[in-house]
Structure formats: C-alpha cells, structure tokens
C-alpha cells in the first residue's frame, strides 16, 4: 500500500509558544497512502506537529516539505490553497460550521475552490450518502448526534479528493461504537482514494487503524512503531 518516497516530511521542527517549547527537533515522514498515528501524552506536542504538517502553524526552526517542496516558508495564500486542494481535516471539536447544514458544510471547500453550487451539492450529497449520513443533509450540526457530525466532518475532509487527511482526536467525543464506525469509514474512504491519513490520538484502539505509530514525548520523537 505504501511507497518509500515520503509525501510529507517534517525535519528537525522546533516550535515554542512563548517560553514553552511544544516541539523540540521533531522529524517525521508521511508516505503516500499511509495511515500514520501520532501518539503521546497530553502536552507531548502531537497536535502541534499535526498543525505544522498541515501548514496551519509555522515552525520556528526546521522545515516541512510536501511532495519535495517546502511549504513552511510559503505565504499564507499558498498554504491555504494547499489545504483546500490537497489536505482534508477532521478535528474533535470545531471543524464544522455550526450555522450551516451538513450539506452546506460539505459543500463549503468546493465552493471556496470556485466550483458551482449545484455541482458542489451533487458531489457533497454523494459523499454524505457514502458515509451513511445522507438523511441529515439538511440538518444543522447541533441537531445531529456526535457520530453523525463526525461523519459529516469526514465527508467534508474527503470531498475535495485530498492526498492527506489530518485527523486530530476524531473519536475523542464519541462512544466506542460510534468511534469505531467513524474510523472505519474514514480509513476505508481514505484508502479507497489513496489518501494518507495523519491521525492524532491517545487511544490504542484508534491507533490500531494506523500502518505506523509515532510516539512523542516532550515535543520530540520518542518511539517509532511500524505496524
């Protein structure tokens, strides 16, 4: 499933928030089609590393490369375009716009990319159906269950056909049954599309879906565990 050339690379990444170091020389590769789990205790820097890999945060030192090109020194517009076209996101909280319906949430990245509304809605509906939440297309995130909301978030993450999906504690707010359902749908759909998944979790049950596990401690790579 995986190839040897990394799709996404972090090299010697340092990042501090004020006087508090979050990442201290972390390096990691994400290969095409690979599911990589970032594990670690609370405050170990796993979410920060994910944000750096996704071009959301800029490291103070070190570099992030995507398909061989540096992205951390690119302007915001380039990194935004990358997030729009090549990346998808599923977070524990806050990834859906609460005032928009499920369909409108999934449509949003397509419309931001300039696709017509009708086309966008057609594609979005297919993804919602595929993730078994087609029946809540017209409902607001607050009106659906947590599991349904996360599946909508997965649909939104995958609707643009991304090469990498970043998932930060995607099952953190779900019970085990719903958590498993969301993970199966996410990983299944991502593999089907050939997309890599970078997964932040502290649950072994979720990490079990990964091809490879990386454990962080105090902002640095502690252990790498091949699947």
């Amino acid at each position, binding site marked *: 499933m995986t190839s040897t050339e990394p799709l996404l690379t972090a090299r010697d990444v340092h990042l501090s928030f004020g006087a508090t170091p979050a990442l201290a020389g972390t390096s990691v590769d994400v290969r095409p089609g690979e599911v990589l789990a970032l594990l670690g205790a609370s405050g170990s820097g796993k979410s920060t590393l994910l944000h750096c890999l*996704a071009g959301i945060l800029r490291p103070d030192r070190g570099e992030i490369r995507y398909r061989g090109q540096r992205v951390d020194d690119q302007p915001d517009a380039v990194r*935004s375009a990358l*997030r729009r076209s090549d990346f998808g996101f599923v*977070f524990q909280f806050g990834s859906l*716009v609460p*005032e928009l319906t499920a369909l*409108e949430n999934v449509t*949003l990245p397509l419309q931001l990319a300039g696709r017509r509304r009708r086309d966008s809605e057609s594609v979005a509906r297919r993804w919602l159906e595929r993730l078994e939440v087609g029946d809540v297309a017209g409902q607001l995130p607050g009106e659906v269950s*947590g599991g349904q909301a996360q599946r909508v978030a997965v649909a939104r993450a995958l609707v*643009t056909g991304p090469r990498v999906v970043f998932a930060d504690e995607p099952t953190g707010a779900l019970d085990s049954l719903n958590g498993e359902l969301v993970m199966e749908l996410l990983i299944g759909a991502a593999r089907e599309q050939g997309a890599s998944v970078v997964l932040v979790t502290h649950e072994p049950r979720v990490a079990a879906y990964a091809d490879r596990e990386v454990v962080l401690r105090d902002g640095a790579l502690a252990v790498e565990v091949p699947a």
Partner: protein
Amino acid sequence: MRTIVLGTRLALRGSRARVAVTALALAFAVAFLLAVLGALPARQAKLDRLAERVPVSVGSEVAGEQQAAPPVLRLSGGIFSTWRGRTLSGHQVVDAQDGTILPPGVSRLPRPGELVVSPDLARALAGPHAAELTSRLPGRVVARIAPEGLSGPHELYAYVGVAKTSTGYPADEVLRFGHRNDPADVSPELRVAAQLGGLGLLLPVLVLVATATRLSAGARDRRLAAVRLVGGTARQVSLLAAGEALVVGVLGAALGALVFGVLRPVAASLVPVEGGVFTADLTPPSGQLVAVLLAVPVLSLLVSLLAMRRLVVDPLGVRRRSRRRSRAGWWRLVPLAAGLALLGWLWGRQGDLEGFDVGLLLSGGALTVVGLAVVAPAVSRLAGVALVQLPGTASRLAGRRLLADPSATARTLTGTVLVVFVGIWLLAFLPIVKVSSSSQASDFAAALPGSSFVVTHGFGLDPGVEQVLSELPGVRQAVTVGLIQLARPGIRSGDENTQIDDLTQAAVAPCVDLAAAFGRKVRCGTGAVFTLRRVREDVSGYTKTPSGPRTVLSPDGALLGEVVVPATATEIDLGIDGWPFQAGTFLDPSVVPPAALKAFSSMLLVTTDGAPATTERVRNALFSQGVHGAQTLAEQLAFEDRTVLGYERAARLGLLLAVLVGAVSLLVASVDAVRARRRDLAALAALGVPVGVLRRALVLEVLAPLVGCLAVAVGAGAFASAAYLSADTYYREVVGLPWQAWGSATGFAALVVLVVTGLTLPLARGAARPEHLRTE
C-alpha cells in the same frame, strides 16, 4: 465577487439572528438619521406654508401701489387669539364676492355668517366646548381648509365671513397670497444645545450598532476559523465577512427606510412645534436620502473590511492583531483628561463665546465622550479589584470576571454612560436658554396666579368692560390700571435737555381693587398717592417719580392736569416691582384728570378661578371689545418661551429615547453575554454553585462598574457644564447647576440599567443547565 456572494449566502443561511439584530440596529440608526435630516426641511416647510398664505395687500411695501383686480378680496388684518392654550388665528373675510382670488387651501370664501376652518378647529367647533368659541367665530362651518393652506395638521385657523371687520381697523384689499420669509436666526446657545442633543441621540444609536455587530462574535469567529481550516484564504475570509456586512448594510438601509416611512407620522407628531408638522413635510431632500441609503451598505462593507484587518483568522481560531491583550491601564485616563482640559480652558472666560470657543467646547466635549468610552474598562477593572476584596462567592465570581475581561462589561455600559454625560451637559444648557429669553409676563407671574389676564390696550378700554368682566362667573377681580405720564412742571414731552426724572410713568388704579387683585392685605388709608415697596433693589427701567407737583401730559404734549406727589406717600406692597410699576408710583383715579385716562393706554388685570371655561369667557368678553390676543399669564409665558419649551420637550424626549436605545444595547449585549457564557455557567452550576449566587454575580458584574462609570460621567458632565457656565458672569449667577435634574436623569438611567439587568436574570437559570456542558 463570487466569494462575496458566498459570504452573503452564508450570512443569510448561517447567522440569521446576528444579521437580523445588526440589521435592525442599523435600521434604527438609518431611520433616526433620516428623521434628523428631515427635521430641517420640515421646519422650512412650515415657514414656507406660513409665508405662502400671507396676504399681500394694496399699498404694502412688497406690492407697491398696485390695484387689486376686481372683484376684490377684502381681509381683516388678522385674528390672533387663544383657545384652551392653543393659538387661534385667521382672517375676517369682509363681504366676500364670487370670483375673487382664494387663500391657499380654501375652495370657497365664507360669506357673512359662514366659516371656513381648519380640520382641528372644525372638530373643536363640533365638540363639547364649542360655546367658548362661538362669540369669536360666529357662524356655521361651510368648508374646511385643505393642508396646503395650513402650517400644521393641528393648527386652529379660520376664515370668518363678516359684513364688516370687528377689529377696528379697515380691511385690506388683497392682491395675492405668498410672502417669502427670511430664515429664522438660531441663537448660539440653542445651536450648541441642538448639536449636543443630536450628538446625545446619535451616540447611543452608534453604540447599539456596535453592540449588535459584536453579537454572536464567538460563533462568527468559529465559522471563519472553520472556513480557514478547509482552505479559505485570509482574503476569502475577509470577503466572506464583507458579504455578511453587505447583507446587513443593505437590509439595514432598506429596513431603516421602511421604519422611517412607517414611523414618520409618529415622528412628525412628536416634533415640538405648535400646530404640528405635516407628515409629508418631514422628508429629507432626495439627494440626502439616496446618499444615506447608498452610503450605509458601502460604509458597512468598508468598516467590515477594515475591522477584518485587525483580526488574524487562522484555522485554529481568531485573535486580534495586537501583541498583548489590552489592559485597563492608566493611559486610558489620557483622552478624558485631555477633553476635560480643553473644556477647562473655558473656565473663567468672560464675555460671549466666539467661534473658536464654540469649537473648543465641541472638541472638548467630543474628546470627553471618547475618553469616557476609553476609561470605562479601567473603571470596570477597579470595580473588579474592589469586588474580590468583599466576602462571598457572588462578589468573588463577579470580581474575577471583571478582572479577567474588564472591557466586556464596560462595553455594555458605554451607551448608557455616554447618554448620561451628554444628558447632564444638555440639562445645564436648558436653563441658560430659558434665562436668555425671559419675558415681561414673568414679572406678573410672580405676584399673580398663572390663570390671570394682564391685558394692555392702546386706546383705553371701554369703562364698562371692567363691570362686564366682574360679573362673569368665575371671575374674582377685574381692575383697570391706567398708565399715565407725569412731568416736572414746565417740561413738555419732546423737550431737549430733560433730566432722567423729568418724565416718569405712574399707574392709576384704586388701591383696594389693586390689592384685591394681587391678593394682598394692604392698608390703603385715605391717601390718593402711593409708592410701592421694592421687592428687589436691582430692578432696572424707569426712574422713581420725585416728590412735589407733577403735571399730567398727553402723548402729544397737551397739559391735562396736575398731581402732587407727597414726600411721604403711603407705601404698599403688591409683591411686584417690574413693569409697569418700576417708577414706584401709583395714583387713585380720583386725583387723575379723566381725560388723562382716555389719552393713555391702560391695562386690565383679571383674576379668575382658573377654570378653562372661565378663561374662555373672559377671552370672549375681551374679544367683543376688540381685544383679540388676550392670554393668561401662563399662556403668555408659554408662548413667549415657545422655542425654549420646544427645545425642553425635544431634549426630554431625546434623552428618554437615548436612554431607551442604550437600554436596548445593554439588553442585547447582556443576553448575548449570558448565552456566550452558557458553558462556564453550566460548569459552575455543576460544581454546586446555586443559581441565586450566579444571578447575584451577574448583577454585581454590572452594578459595580455602573456605579463607577456613572460617577465619572456625572463628574465629567458637571465639570463640562460648570466650565461653560463660568464663561458668562450672568449665567453663572442666575442659572447655577441643575443638580436636581442631573440627579433625576442619572437615577433614571441607573434604574433602566438595573431593570434591564433584572430582565436577563431569568436567563441565568436556563444558561446554567448541565446540557450546556456539551460543546457541540
């Protein structure tokens, strides 16, 4: 453009409540702005309407010596009377002929015994008090005057058909109607007061708009961050926000125009001018109307784009561009201190305020307003420091909350605080305006009841009128006071080189009757010459009549008789020494030659039981004597101070409106604050904090900074007022600072804030429910 459209759709779909409230606030501002822009045209329209019905007659200065085209319209000089406190005016139409020119709004002329009247007067003539009018307006109503012939919808105006005039003056032959007036001049005090009033009203409206735009800011930030997460660029996010602003701007402008259109009749009815203002006249010029309706969405768009430049929206959230969170530091005192320093410049300045001083005054006021808004978080923080020192969970929670975010509560109070400051300043101006237009009637009003008539008549009244009036039901006393001129023997009026006391005035009336009219117990004795005891020593005007023989001269200088003013005349106290008693001498009619009483003007004092019906009976009796404009003292004062009263009413109404608008801002902000803190409140409740404690904490959170902010606003307002007053010695001595009015205004504002806070308390129970612990 596509992104703006997407933003527009997102705004309409995603944040309806926010868009609706912001658009409503903007609509209110637009409606208010349109009403303000329409006020001046309304005033001008009223002047134009009055000017357009002025008859231009043969021989008048304007028309020259032209001849009126036959058949000639003949009008009396005018009817000027009063009915139940309202001005009643019009013209007598003498022996109307067919085919003459018609006054504006009149479809046919009244023939003798007929009336053409305004709608309000027609209602009055058909109402229960019609009998009070019939002797002044004899005849039956045959037509109504259309709006184009009236200055306002509630004007009492009449064209009375008569065979000959009853005014004693010949009728004028009318050439045409329409005489352009020069615009009325507004005094500097009124202009400053009006500017302050406008500022006072506009401020809370702007605060309301600002409050509304912050509504659900957290939700908007989450939405924008989510858009960034899925790849929206910073520019796209700005354009999305601009789309929302555009929706709000367009909706606000359209709704504002609609609200203005719907409420225009109400606004017109509130304009404090006698006779009212026609709704159609309260219309902004079309250019200004279009400018406002276009400018609001454009400004809304630009303000949104500018505001977005201060925000950093990234996929993880929204933050301000400033490096550090703003603290409630001492620098916040600087704008307030600078504003007060500018106002202090005026302190002790003598003489009238020139343009530079007015500019200084307004700049100082504007800077103080900004300063009050800037200093509010510092006051809020101090309140937090004080609260955490107190025992009890509620005060500690409130104190910590204020210390954590002093600006949040300060923002909700800003509208009310600014209204109090401007209101206090405005309240200090009104007495100045009042004093600057004091009337002669006020001299009498101090000694006679307001329902009394004091009528001066140039030709001398029919001696029988006193008897007629005395016999009217409800009349207590009717006394004629003659006003004659006394001269030092040998002096003729018109002589050159006369000394100041060579010619003096004296009043002529029976002492007993005069004392009864003024309600004074006076020992008149048997003397015939009296002097008045001074009430005040500083009365300016006529010189006291010297003792010794004085001659009575007619206005044309003829010798009419002689009077001896004794050195020790009986001194009596009528409680008045203003006009016409400044000379301090009055005589019994028995010692004055009868010819003198006929030669000079006389004055009639009539005291009544104060009933409106009695007032109208007296007026009717005087009308039959050719005295058309008789008014009670209270009416005279009201009419002379009409402008002042109008401004007072406008100021009170404006302040009330401003406080209410401030209250709406506070309510919107308070409800939003409780909603935004649902999770925090739910967490506290889950920890076992009783809802009562949460409610007390919410009240203290508002009350503590409110007290501090109001104290600063009242202090600044008092300083600003005192600085202005100190610029004029007369105002400083006569007017003084209106502490009572200030106290009432501040108390009212504080009460409104407390009521609004009380209204939000029931929300605390709902907000503290455990389910709010669930974030999404």
